[in-house]
């Protein structure tokens, strides 16, 4: 028996021509909320530009960056954006390798999210430099003074890892887009047709192209998984390889990776709900897929919670006086409010995802995803700032809440990310048309096979009569596969 529509990943009877039409129309005709969000993002970005100009003209003092707070919100935000990029890899690469069909309608925007959050993250080391015109100092180039970068520094590893991750994830996005760009090329007019014609690189969908495409996509997915893990491990090494209390922790790499996947999944939930509404994608971004995303997020939330507990336990029983004092101070000191906010948003709130009614309620899930992301942002901030506030030397202790300029730039980075993302989904298909067709095709074939097997079993039962094997109701071990019906006509 086929499940009711609301319980399906997607409706397998979706006509292929309609999939093309729906997705291509979304690029022309979003709801008004799209434009309102676009305007809000633009305004947020303008705030950041103004704050950066002010900081540039006045100096880094306006961002509160002086001893002992040489790193602060900029680095916490950098870690946050790097982390957010990991969910794209999780959804597109890991779930691709394990053949999780439900990823197909939603992986495209998750991949775009990966690329754009990396582009946003890349700004923060530059902003943090203060002298932005020297931004290329973050790259491991051969210095004109004859001094090579220190290859033993995790900061140099960062530059290698992030540039590799950015180029690999951008290529992964572009390669996965090619068949859809060919669809867009064939069914649009004017400048769009020209643009997609160039970007589709002559895709015709012949068997040679499909064979090479499939292999290439799988190989890239295999590269992206260890790459994503290495990137956040290396980012965690920026902290873990120092001797600062609260940072010199063995579990930091897995803790960072779990946090990254967690915040990324929460971001996917937010963008899922937004795109579903903006582009009327109710038939593609279904409640069933939302449920699966929520369950995945909950599982990762529990891993992250466990790693938090491990870190606390290791500090508590480790008897390193600086680490222990810092942990106590986080819980009861000036940053206690944020610490408990992090625990609430990151550990307690995700239990809401256990309730099916909530998981199927889009406004509730929108609020939940924002709460989870707040928790994950505060987590990054709690890693960076309290350690610098309460390090080894008590005479240097200083509480810092982040001046307005710093807040404005961080706030504006969300606007910048939003702008990139919104422009992307307006220009390119945010739902993978060919993969949704494949999904519908396979679902239909599965249902037909099941129906055929059931019919066969019924026939067997009739043939054997009431005294046949297994009490007359035997189920055949295997049934011949029904012929695959191919596509649904337009």
């Amino acid at each position, binding site marked *: 028996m086929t499940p009711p529509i609301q319980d399906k990943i997607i409706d397998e009877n979706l006509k292929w021509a309609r999939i093309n039409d729906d997705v291509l129309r979304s690029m022309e005709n979003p709801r008004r909320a799209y434009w309102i969000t676009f305007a809000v993002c633009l305004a947020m970005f303008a705030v950041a530009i103004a704050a950066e100009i002010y900081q540039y003209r006045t100096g880094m003092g306006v961002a509160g960056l002086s001893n002992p707070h040489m790193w602060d919100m900029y680095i916490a935000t950098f870690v946050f954006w790097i982390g957010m990029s990991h969910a794209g890899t999780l959804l597109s690469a890991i779930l691709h390798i394990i053949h999780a069909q439900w990823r197909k309608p939603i992986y495209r925007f998750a991949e775009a999210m990966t690329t754009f959050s990396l582009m946003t993250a890349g700004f923060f080391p530059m902003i943090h430099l203060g002298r932005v015109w020297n931004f290329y100092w973050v790259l491991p180039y051969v210095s004109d003074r004859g001094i090579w970068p220190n290859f033993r520094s995790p900061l140099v590893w960062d530059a290698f890892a992030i540039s590799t991750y950015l180029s690999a994830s951008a290529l992964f996005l572009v390669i996965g887009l090619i068949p859809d760009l060919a669809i867009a090329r064939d069914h649009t007019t004017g400048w769009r047709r020209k643009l997609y014609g160039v970007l589709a690189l*002559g895709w015709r969908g012949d068997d040679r192209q*499909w064979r090479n495409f499939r292999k290439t996509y799988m190989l890239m997915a295999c590269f992206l998984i260890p790459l994503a893990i290495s990137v956040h491990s290396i980012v965690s090494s920026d902290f873990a390889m120092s001797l600062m209390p609260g940072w010199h922790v063995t579990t930091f790499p897995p803790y960072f990776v779990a946090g990254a996947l967690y915040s990324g999944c929460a971001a996917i939930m937010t963008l899922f709900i937004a795109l579903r509404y903006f582009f009327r994608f109710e038939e593609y971004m279904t409640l069933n897929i939302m449920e699966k995303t929520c369950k995945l997020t909950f599982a990762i939330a529990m891993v992250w919670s466990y790693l938090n507990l491990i870190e606390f336990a290791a500090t508590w029983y480790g008897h390193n006086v600086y680490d222990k004092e810092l942990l106590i101070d986080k819980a009861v000191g000036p940053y206690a409010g944020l610490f408990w906010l992090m625990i609430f948003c990151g550990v307690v709130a995700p239990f809401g995802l256990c309730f099916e009614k909530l998981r199927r309620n889009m406004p509730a899930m929108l609020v939940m995803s924002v709460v989870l992301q707040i928790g994950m942002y505060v987590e990054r901030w709690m890693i960076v700032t309290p350690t610098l506030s309460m390090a080894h030397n008590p005479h240097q202790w200083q509480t810092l809440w982040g001046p307005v300029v710093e807040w404005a730039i961080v706030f504006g980075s969300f606007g910048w990310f939003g702008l990139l993302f919104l422009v992307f989904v307006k220009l390119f298909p945010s739902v993978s048309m060919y993969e949704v067709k*494949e999904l519908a095709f396979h679902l239909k074939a599965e249902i037909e096979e099941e129906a055929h097997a059931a019919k066969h079993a019924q026939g067997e039962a009739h043939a054997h009569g009431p005294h046949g094997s297994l009490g007359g109701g035997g189920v055949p071990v295997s049934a011949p596969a029904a012929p695959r019906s*191919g*596509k649904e006509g337009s």
Partner: protein
Amino acid sequence: MAKHQVLAMFSDFDHAIAAIENIKSGKMPGATIEDITVLSPIEHPDIDNILGKRPVNVQKFTFTGALFGMAFAFFFISSAQASFLVQPQGGKPVIPFPTAFVLMYEQLIFWGVWTTVITFLVLAGMMKKRGNLYSEKLTVDQIGLGLEIDDSKLEGVKEFFRQQQALEIREEKVR
């Protein structure tokens, strides 16, 4: 002798696969299964089995590229950091392998990914001019079977495709 390209369009995979099976069993005059190109909006899981083994060599280049990236990183970092001229002392290695390892890992992936993409573009025949025989319906829901044949076989091939219930048959003289 003049050559023609023919493209037969089918309404679904079942008809296209039936036609391929018939070509395989020698029912099409002047063409074999090796001459057939299947064009489709999605990748059908059974097409590879029906068409027979056709090679995909992307992974060989990927492997080579990844190895190159690893070696490149090692020599790049070694050349920047190695202290060949000083007497090794105080625990400082001539070539500090542990730090090089992280960057070798990153460069292995970097070069592996780029080589994979470039190889894909070449081996999949992207950006290659192939004549005008194409239909926009191939990116909607129809399946195409394409082949290149001699002028003398053209009518026989068209008749074969008509018998296989092709929705449309397009042809183009190539040379």
